[in-house]
């Protein structure tokens, strides 16, 4: 049992936090949000310079090889700063997919530009049908003489409009799934852009008779591999949410000290003190669950891994909802405004609850595996 971090891990957290303090404060973030693209290429380049885009790439592939704990700590900082750049989408999830499933040649082709910030890739997996069954993909890939023909629709693909490559999951037969590397600018790919509730950029991705070559398919059994990739990403998303929860609680405590009503700081009132104590307990339980998610996200026992991840997502989703709602409530009308960061964290946490399976879905997953062993 050891809850310490290595010097290298601690440095990753410190570096990420310092970067956010110096280069990505709340006002800067608002300008990025309101910009045309909704994310900053300049920031992306800076993240690459810091090496953070090579975070989870193994050392033999030229990366840092920081693994799940490194991903957790950097993601925590990303959540604290509510970054709008495709860090989770590209540097964690899509990168992980290429690391896990790519051939030596594919890894060599894509990992260096991903690490350098020259290439952005995102996983396009979610569909209406995958909501309650992560592998129930309807998008199809039919083999033909030149490779594959892709048809289908992917919903709320975060940062799809920023991506050079879409990693598209598709059914290749009755049961088999494949993961295909699809350039976002080729014929038949249509992106319908949208802004998500947490003000990130996303798109519905529609694939109409998209012709892709045979070498675009990543190797390995896509169903098993996909679940592992999704769980790896889920652990990082949990860490992001934890970072946001910690920040929104800190903001609430500070506000309750400064805001005076009835001649006293509202933080001196017991009704509010107990609410904040409750928020803190949710936060600490969430931190524990983030650790659980991180330590299980590469567990080769899929059942154990999924159970731990579902427990983490469900409990952290509940924590996110309680902490978020109470933070807005305790800020009163100010919590409703765009001016304070509280409403921004609130929306980031709402998105967390809804992404990668809702709280209820994960609670159900967990319930179904209950046994008496």
């Amino acid at each position: 049992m050891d809850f310490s971090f290595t010097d290298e891990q601690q440095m990753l957290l410190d570096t990420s936090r310092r970067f956010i303090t110096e280069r990505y404060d709340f006002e800067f973030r608002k300008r990025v949000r309101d910009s045309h693209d909704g994310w900053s290429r300049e920031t992306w380049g800076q993240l690459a310079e810091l090496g953070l885009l090579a975070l989870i790439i193994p050392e033999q592939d030229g990366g840092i090889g920081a693994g799940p704990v490194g991903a957790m700590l950097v993601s925590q900082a990303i959540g604290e700063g509510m970054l709008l750049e495709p860090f989770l989408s590209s540097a964690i999830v899509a990168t992980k997919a290429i690391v896990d499933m790519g051939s030596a040649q594919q890894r060599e082709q894509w990992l260096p530009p991903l690490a350098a910030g020259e290439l952005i890739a995102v996983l396009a997996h979610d569909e209406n049908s995958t909501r309650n069954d992560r592998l129930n993909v309807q998008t199809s890939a039919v083999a033909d003489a030149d490779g594959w023909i892709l048809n289908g629709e992917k919903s709320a693909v975060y940062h799809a409009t920023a991506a050079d490559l879409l990693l598209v999951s598709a059914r290749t037969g009755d049961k088999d799934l494949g993961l295909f590397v699809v350039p976002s600018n080729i014929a038949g790919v249509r992106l319908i852009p949208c802004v998500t509730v947490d003000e990130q950029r996303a798109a519905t991705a529609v694939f109409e008779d998209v012709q892709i070559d045979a070498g675009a398919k990543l190797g390995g059994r896509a169903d098993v591999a996909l679940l592992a990739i999704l769980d790896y990403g889920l652990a990082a998303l949990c860490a992001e949410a934890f970072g946001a929860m910690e920040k929104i609680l800190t903001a609430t405590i500070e506000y309750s000290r400064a805001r005076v009503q009835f001649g006293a700081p509202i933080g001196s009132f017991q009704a509010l003190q107990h609410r904040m104590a409750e928020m803190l307990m949710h936060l600490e339980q969430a931190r524990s669950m983030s650790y659980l998610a991180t330590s299980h996200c590469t567990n080769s026992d899929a059942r154990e891994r999924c159970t731990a991840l579902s427990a983490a997502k469900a409990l952290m989703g509940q924590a996110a909802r309680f902490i978020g709602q109470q933070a807005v409530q305790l800020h009163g009308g100010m919590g409703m405004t765009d001016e304070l960061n509280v409403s921004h964290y609130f929306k980031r946490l709402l998105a967390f609850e809804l992404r990668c399976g809702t709280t209820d879905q994960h609670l159900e997953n967990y319930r179904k595996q209950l046994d008496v062993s």
Partner: protein
Amino acid sequence: MDLDFSSDEQAFRDEVRHFLASELPDAIRDRMYRGDHSHVRNDIQQWQKILHAKGWGAPAWPTAFGGTGWSKTQQYIFENECSLADAPAQLAFGIKMVAPVIMRFGTPEQQQRFLPRILAADDWWCQGYSEPGSGSDLASLKMKAERDGDEYVLNGQKVWNTLGQYADWIFCLVRTDATGKPQKGISFLLIDMKTPGITVRPTRLLDGTFEVNEIWFDNVRVPVADRIGEENQGWTYAKFLLGHERTNIAGIGASKRELQRLKQRAASQPKGDASMLQDPVFATRIAQVEMELRALEITNMRVIFAEARQQAPGPEASMLKIRGTEILQCISELQVDLLGADALVQGGDGGEAARSTSAYLNLRKLSIFGGSNEIQRNIIAHMILGL
């Protein structure tokens, strides 16, 4: 970061398990399993003597006083394994509460006189803190101790003395100065329960048991030599005591044991073509509490890990107390709800239904004693959040 026990810690856990399997008497284990407290004095004392013979009588004491010298993690593992095995909990009032105070603030004479007898279960200790008018606001306590030569003369009443009906000794907070700030006029006394003028009356509780007592003091004479530390400094010692030995305050082992039993019963309770463990509504409630327990187990280990490095038992223990008691209470609710109308039937042969219902009733105490959960929230707000 590693959430699993190290191989050394696992080996220690196995050693504890093996010891419990071979040395915990079946009769005691069986009574604990059935929630039968009719032999509580014997069961606790006998078990303490077995532990003492093994050298495990005081998991948290330093070796100089006959303790194990175990790490916090080992103590945690030991207590959890004891709970899982249905061993009686060691009597906290002696080993965990008054003993650390005697070690830290007592005279060498007091240490030699009391500590070995606590370790060997020769003396049964109880706690005299709460009074009819002083519960959460403990510092307002009024029981008078007036100086008369080398003695104090005590007059007043204590309440909620857990298992005080079996006690040889009681440690009390008493009022030695009523003029200044309430916290400044309290002294910490060790009192022989055989002293003339002490009357103990057990309080019948909602589950029909007699777990706590009222104790009256009528001109009880106590040697000044049996005071801990300085006169009027008792509040400091009491606070020290509260900050001690809270490693296992979350009761992870007990919750795991009860949750496991709950799931077994749910699995054997048919519902339609399946069991209650597959019932979407009921099983979701089990899932919820199991997830929370899983998180608290990690939170608890985080607190232990931090404590072992900073040596300071922090206010984090308040979180463990609140969440731990909520979880154990929740499991006891589920046990009653699973039984449904069967839980109505009490008395008789003390079957499972009676045990579950009694436990549910009895465990309401968890969120009340040891500083109510509301007081714990005050502590979190003041000490952690700085409000």
